[in-house]
């Protein structure tokens, strides 16, 4: 590099790098410390390992969970349900929010209903989904119910940001509402769409686990509930750890795809 780098700038870069490394090291230490104190406090019987499980036992019986409890199969079921639920709620939310934009009358009419549906704890609808959709499909019902309203509200808020003078420009070319949608609204709301996807994937996972709690024969939610009932805290803890990993992976994939989309349309 031919650029000028003063000693002060180099020192600044070094400081930045060191600080970054320190943050990573502290993070890792914090996790290790947590696991260690968990292990020690159960080993020394400060707490009852029947109630908390213990890291060493989790590791020791992981093989058993994989082969006898089929924990990876259950993770896969939850993943599958979350992906389907996510796609369903994005598609439904997207179509409905376009409809609400297209017809301001409809939007005004439905506004109070959306507010109520947003405030309502969707978990309360669980038994209804169970009766209407049966034990398998009710999971999707729950997943969509929890994530779709927020999706509609977020996408719609993005659509409302379309400025008056952008509309004026389009009208000056004689654009109809469909053309405004196609040429401005959809591409302009890609950043909102990406933000909505990120929120949606988390909420869908909540819905899926909730649905599995209420009615299911498989999935991490089922396994957590089952493990609790037979007092197998190690199984519960392992399932939770896998769930955490799963949620990070799903979120990561969605952010990655979102960033690709943003870059493709020059928002980044």
């Amino acid at each position, binding site marked *: 590099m031919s650029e000028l780098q003063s000693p002060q700038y180099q020192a600044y870069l070094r400081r930045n790098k060191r600080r970054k490394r320190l943050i990573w090291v502290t993070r890792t230490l914090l996790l290790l410390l947590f696991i260690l104190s968990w292990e020690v406090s159960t080993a020394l019987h400060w707490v009852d390992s029947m109630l908390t499980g213990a890291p060493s036992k989790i590791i020791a019986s992981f093989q058993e969970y994989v082969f006898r409890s089929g924990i990876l199969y259950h993770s896969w079921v939850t993943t599958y349900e979350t992906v389907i639920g996510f796609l369903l709620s994005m598609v439904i939310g997207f179509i409905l929010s376009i409809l609400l934009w297209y017809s301001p009358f409809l939007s005004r009419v439905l506004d109070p209903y959306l507010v109520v549906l947003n405030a309502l704890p969707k978990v309360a609808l669980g038994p209804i989904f169970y009766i209407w959709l049966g034990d398998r499909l009710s999971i999707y019902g729950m997943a969509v119910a929890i994530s779709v309203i927020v999706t509609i509200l977020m996408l719609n808020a993005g659509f409302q940001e379309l400025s008056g003078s952008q509309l004026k*420009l389009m*009208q*000056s*070319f*004689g654009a109809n509402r469909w053309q405004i949608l196609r040429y*401005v609204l959809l591409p302009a709301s890609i950043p909102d769409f990406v933000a909505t996807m990120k929120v949606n994937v988390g909420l869908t996972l909540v819905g899926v686990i909730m649905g599995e709690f209420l009615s299911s024969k498989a999935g991490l939610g089922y396994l957590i509930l089952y493990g609790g009932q037979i007092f197998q805290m190690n199984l519960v803890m392992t399932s939770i750890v896998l769930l955490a990993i799963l949620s990070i992976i799903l979120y990561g994939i969605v952010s990655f795809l979102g960033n690709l989309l943003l870059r493709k349309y020059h928002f980044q």
Partner: protein
Amino acid sequence: MKVIEFKEVSFRYFSPSKETEALKNVHFQVTEGEMVSIVGPSGCGKSTLLSLISGMAFPSQGEVKLFNNKVKEPSHRVGYMLQHDHLFPWRDILSNLLLGAQIRKMDVNEAKKRALYLLEKYGLGDFAHFTPGQLSGGMKQRVALIRTLVVQPDMLILDEPFSALDYQTRLRLSDEIWHIIRDQKKTAVIVTHDLSEAIAMSDRVLVMSKRPGTIKSEHLIHFAGKRPSPLQVRQQSDYQEYFNDIWKELDGDE
């Protein structure tokens, strides 16, 4: 030939709490090839007036005619340039220029040729495949003007086209835009709150009163010899006189 004709035009608009009279008895004409500026205090209905010309609003009373036809819908003969360029970041410069042609379902290949020609002609030939974010504010505003020229309007209306720019860019750009409009032999109506810009750019200045807006006075801007460009105008000895006259007119409203 008369391009624009306002006959005793009034315009009222409604909100749930009140009725507002925005324009009252507006009466004026613009002939082919003229550049006319409209100045007036803010909120006097200047932009409303442009909406009436472009067919996005219709008079409550009176009549607005474009090329001797009553305005009933947005006309393809009018090009509209706004304060903000609104070049879309997901389109490169060339495809931003084709927006109007796509909406109007014109021959896109023909439009592309025109767009490239105009870009080349007005010094932006190298930027066809840049994204808007890579251009300066002044360049983007020039692209915005070219975007309206690509659909081949017979006349242009410009709504505060320079007010989002810094002072220096503003002076230079008003000169460039003036040259382009002259060069293309377009009739133009420019709304501005900048008095010196109005004098520098136009053949005639219409002064509006505060709301309900009406045309208070008309000032022909004329210089001996060849019409100087906006940058030169500001150095003419007559310029200050025009400025003082119109200033007094506007000041009478306070």
